[in-house]
């Protein structure tokens, strides 16, 4: 799933490790999300949205949007 996770993380000056700690996931999970090797669960997507204080749609592109 296309996303702006890396852009938002870099904008805030966070490392992958720091974002992982904020979200309660491993650095490997952050790398996988940023490189689109993992589609997050709804729970994780909302956690990410809450961490960046943005709606989910601002971070993840809806693959089903017409």
């Amino acid at each position, binding site marked *: 799933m296309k996303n702006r996770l890396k852009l938002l993380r870099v904008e805030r000056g966070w490392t992958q490790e720091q974002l992982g700690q904020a979200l309660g996931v*491993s650095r490997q999970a952050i790398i996988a999300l940023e490189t689109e090797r993992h*589609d997050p669960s709804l729970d994780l997507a909302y956690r990410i949205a809450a961490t960046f204080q943005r709606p989910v749609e601002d971070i993840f592109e809806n693959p089903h949007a017409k």
Partner: protein
Amino acid sequence: MVNLECGPRDTRYGWGTGLSMGFYGLSVAGVSVGVNQGWLHGWPLYAASILPGLAITAQLVFTLDFFRRTDEFLRALMAKRFIVAACLTFALWSVWGFLETFAGAQHLPGWLAYAVMWFFFGASALFIKSSK
């Protein structure tokens, strides 16, 4: 929230896997030596034959414990690698089993399946890096 130590280098999982593999290897070697030297037979042999099975069961417990503590990406990735490794092992044993039964191929001991499964698991890690 997950425990952040539950990455691929998770200590509890690493030690558990190492111990169960070591116990498996020692128990197989011990039974083989005992039988070949003739001092292991009868009910002690039957009892000793359970040991490799116990080592694999312990590995299952450590794996499920890791799955419970780790994050969704690592859980999905590990599960995918285990499924691939287990199915490749089943496939290899089925093919060899038919060759053994119908084509006179040399006997392949069933207890080797665990080691072969870990070989496929390690090999799958080189190719499976996505949870998708």
